[in-house]
């Protein structure tokens, strides 16, 4: 069976001159705003789409961390391609979430045959406000008739299939929408029309367009789940997709660090090597810490999807708000290091950086923006107060299910919930901190205890958060941001505690990555970090060493079971 370990090598091979991932070819597509068809075809041929289909439907999607590793590998070469291809998983997610096995099996067949699936949520002028959707579906005979537009939508034109959120109750409301799986080939001529491609700032080659329906008839079995269930299905599916698509940020971070590393090693200024300048080292080290912390959060979230899916409404919101933001900050640091080379698009093959930056900015916009996710977290904050009695019986401790070789329960969308009543990861923080403090090298390390203090200080403010109808106040949004940082710190400590067998290995020995990540977390919480430059300096040293070609906790080539 092919696994990601092999996949990384395959993609690297494709990236050679003349290959489907040849940077020159991908740059040319970006310039011309043409679809990276060669790269997507190569991914199709390899069978990446099989990984978008859960095992019960005959596909290979077994674990979300594996899905992340695959998307990260593609994104590390070309984020546009990862967005263009990975979109099918997003388009299909509401069908997997519904648990409808007939529909699922039919969709699985299409996907594994190479058909792209779009996800029609957004409407012109509607943005993230799903309740404002005006595309309607009305019963006609045994089936349904769709009228209205979805735009902008990824793969709207190229995708033969689309899952579409439609208003089925004219009054709207939380039970007023339903999801339909539309096969555009089965609709009558003239009832489905494509809307033009939107010229975008980044991912210029992707098919960001739209689709308009005019009395388009779809059969009864196109309804996903039940009538009125649409919004819930979409919001639950988003929990899965948000957890997965942050891998795009990790890939962008990988790509940027490759360029930064090369630049640091070859650049000289004022008769010195750039790597000998402390401020450059601190910036590079912080860039590394940002990527590793992002990876720890993404990894913990992927595991949580299997282990505590009931909490994914919080976990996915934290992850989607924080990971792209961490990587955006990482790219800012790399941009400052590269200077003019990050701005000029054709100099010494650093030109790719400007494209990474443009492309990456979509990750914090699509699938719910940073603010939408933070707002979603804010709505649940009062249920997440530190010290609140756990909602249910305690499951496996965090340091067990975050183990690299831990078995994972099968993905079970029926366990997803709209609201979360507890946060297993942060509830375990005190335990994780005391485990860390008992390690010989960490006895004097105050980072983890200070994180615990900061988390406990959230108890008061969180207990005062009141449910609100409208968008949350700035104060509550800032609390949510602090909560995200605490979550990230717990993720890093959890990953550390769960994997003692790695403590002596590349990127783990000496605990430098953990110190760098916790430093970053405390800084994010606005706390003083007097030893930050020393911590980042260590990470920079590793970036420059032979290990620096693969900045990752679990490795993009190995680690994910085949």
């Amino acid at each position, binding site marked *: 069976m092919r696994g990601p370990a092999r996949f990384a090598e395959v993609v690297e091979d494709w990236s050679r001159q003349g290959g489907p991932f040849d940077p020159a070819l991908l740059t040319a597509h970006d310039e011309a705003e043409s679809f990276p068809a060669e790269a997507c075809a190569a991914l199709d041929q390899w069978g990446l789409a099989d990984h978008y289909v859960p095992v019960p439907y005959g596909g290979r999607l077994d674990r979300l961390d594996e899905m992340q590793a695959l998307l990260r590998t593609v994104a590390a070469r070309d984020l546009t391609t990862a967005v263009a291809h990975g979109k099918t998983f997003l388009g299909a997610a509401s069908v997997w979430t519904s648990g409808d096995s007939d529909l699922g099996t039919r969709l699985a067949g299409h996907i594994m045959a190479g058909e792209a699936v779009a996800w029609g949520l957004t409407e012109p002028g509607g943005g993230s406000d799903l309740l404002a959707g005006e595309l309607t579906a009305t019963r006609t005979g045994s089936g349904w008739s769709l009228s209205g537009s979805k735009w902008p939508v990824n793969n709207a034109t190229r995708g033969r299939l689309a899952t579409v959120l439609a208003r089925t109750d004219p009054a709207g409301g939380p039970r007023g929408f339903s999801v339909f799986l539309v096969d555009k080939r089965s609709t009558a001529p003239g009832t489905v029309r494509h809307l033009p491609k939107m010229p975008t*700032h980044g991912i210029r080659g992707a098919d960001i367009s739209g689709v308009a329906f005019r009395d388009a008839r779809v059969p009864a079995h196109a309804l996903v789940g039940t009538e009125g269930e649409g919004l819930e299905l979409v919001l639950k599916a988003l929990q899965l997709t948000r957890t997965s698509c942050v891998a795009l940020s990790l890939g962008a971070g990988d790509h940027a660090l490759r360029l930064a590393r090369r630049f640091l090693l070859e650049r000289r200024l004022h008769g010195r090597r750039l790597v000998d300048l402390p401020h*450059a080292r601190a910036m590079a080290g912080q860039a590394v810490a940002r990527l590793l912390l992002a990876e720890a959060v993404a990894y913990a979230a992927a595991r949580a999807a299997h282990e505590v899916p009931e909490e994914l409404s919080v976990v996915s919101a934290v992850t989607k708000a924080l990971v792209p933001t961490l990587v955006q900050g990482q790219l800012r640091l790399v941009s400052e290091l590269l200077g003019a080379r990050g701005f000029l698009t054709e100099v010494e093959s650093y030109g790719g950086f400007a494209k990474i930056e443009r492309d990456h900015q979509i990750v914090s916009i699509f699938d719910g923006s940073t603010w939408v996710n933070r707002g979603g977290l804010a709505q649940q904050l009062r249920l997440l107060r530190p010290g609140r009695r756990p909602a249910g019986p305690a499951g496996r401790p965090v340091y067990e299910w975050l183990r690299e070789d831990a078995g994972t329960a099968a993905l079970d969308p029926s366990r997803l919930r709209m609201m979360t009543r507890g946060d297993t990861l942060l509830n375990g923080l005190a335990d994780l901190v005391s485990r860390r403090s008992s390690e010989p090298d960490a006895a004097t390390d105050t980072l983890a205890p200070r994180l615990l203090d900061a988390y406990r200080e959230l108890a008061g403010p969180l207990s005062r958060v009141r449910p609100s109808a409208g968008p949350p106040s700035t104060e509550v949004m800032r609390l949510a941001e602090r909560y995200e940082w605490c979550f990230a710190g717990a993720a890093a400590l959890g990953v550390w505690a769960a994997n003692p067998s790695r403590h002596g290995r590349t990127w783990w020995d000496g605990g430098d990555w953990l110190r760098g990540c916790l430093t970053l977390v405390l800084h994010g919480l606005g706390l003083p970090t007097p030893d930050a430059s020393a911590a980042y300096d260590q990470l920079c040293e590793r970036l420059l060493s032979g290990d620096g070609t693969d900045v990752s906790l679990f490795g993009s080539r190995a680690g994910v079971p085949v």
Partner: protein
Amino acid sequence: MTGIDTRVDELEARLGDPWDPDNPAGFAAIVAADEREETPSGGRAVLDDYGILAEFVPRGLGGRLERVDHLVELMRSVYRRDPSLGLGHCSSSLLGAVNVWTAGSEEQRQDAAKLLLAGGKISCAFHELAHGNDIGSVEFSATPAGNALMLNGRKESITNLDRADAVVFLARTDPAGGPRSTSQLFVPVTGIDPARARFLPRFRSVGMRGVRLGGIEVDGAPVDRDALLGPTGTGMETVARAFQLTRMALPGMSTAMLDTALRVTLRHVRGRRLYGRTAADIPMVRTTLANAFTDLLVCEAFSNVAARSLHVLPASGSVYAPAVKYLLAGVLLDAVEQLSLVMGSEFYRRDGEHAVFQKTVRDIKPVAFGHIARAACLSAVLPQLPVLARRAWGKPGPRPGTGPGPGSGPGPGSGPAPAELFVADHAVPPLDLPGLSLVSGGQDGLALSLGAALDDELPGPLRPLVEAQADQLASLAEACAGLKPRDLSIAAPVAVRDLAARYTTVLAAAACVGVWRHAPADGFLARPEWLVAALTRLAGVAAGSPRDVPYELEGGLVDELLDRERRTVGFGVSGRRYR
């Protein structure tokens, strides 16, 4: 066209309504030109008709350049429209010209003036990719050969190099190296033997795409010896004086990009309904708008004051110029990034009426590294910290009832700044570029003015904030006084660099306090609210951890912003009428 108000009004009238889709100098034409990697011809024509380059020529040479703050103010009208036009068609010539004004002979100055007044371009060919900001290490050389100098080498990523009428080169004249090993040359393009020189293909860029970045490879081209600007070996000295002006002025002009980003964002949120209300009512949107507005005021207050300092406190430009560049670059980039969160997916569009936003996101990037990078700015401030700490900052200002402060202190130049540093309409001494100092010698009237503000009239809500800045300065004084030369090199420890970075926030705070204290009594700038907001934001910058403007001030700031937008008035310090 004499006064600055008349000149700005005239220029604005010619530029026309930016939102008019048929305006050849409007946002639609500008975005379309950017897609073609050009500046809009309509915009160029407007600027040529207006005679924009005369703004860069000193009055004594027939131009309109008298005050640096006015130059910045006027150019904001251009940058607000299109920074590519601003840099590519205008201020790139300033980069070369200031060196001629600073070190050129009377004949060279006349030649440069004539050239600019006729609408010609001067290119500033200092940069080599291999050396970046380390321009002292340039390899491009000018070697004496009889009565000529022989040019050899490459210059890369140079604005307008293949379109210029004259070029100012920075060239190595002493292969042995050292501080006096480079010289500047002012060369008419016709003076370079085309058989000995090859223009490099255009360097393409992700932002400022309308700006033509060129390069040249010269293989033994002779130029006249009298092309030298000043004596041989003074290349870096001239840079150190002349670029004080541009390192303040260019970031100062760049604040107009934040003005545009704010304007587009307001237009977007006013027109957008989400969750049953307009986006302008969403709390995070309001906070972000209030923060960005405050940031713009901070940046303009600091850069305006610094621009005037070249007239009023000319000894301190070697510190204030890199401080302005460092602080503005960080604040402007952050502010535009935050506004992109408000824009949401609309930020990502290259079509529609908000397309100029994504262009602004790309265009603002060079503020961090163009001309001089942020890191190099701190490197320039660092060596001056100990003497500033010992001679200027050690004196705490008056607290209520403590009697006279440093205002009545020792000799001239060592006291706090006079009022004309902070207001736009007081007369200032003439600009004397050759007279600018290479180092400040510990003179820092701007920072000292903080102490002078701590008098009995300081309103209650402001007092703790201003005191915090004075305390910050005192703690910097303590930390910097004993720094050793080895701590102050390019390889300074990060903690020492942080001192320099914190110092830039104190200077910006002092500028804001001064602008508030000397503002006309009934105007917006005389109200304490914006200053409380500004000092709060600056404290966040100093701490490396952003702070929102106080919640109770947010509403007033957003109302002011919306009101200015309705009246098409600039969001910055001058609050000038825009088209």
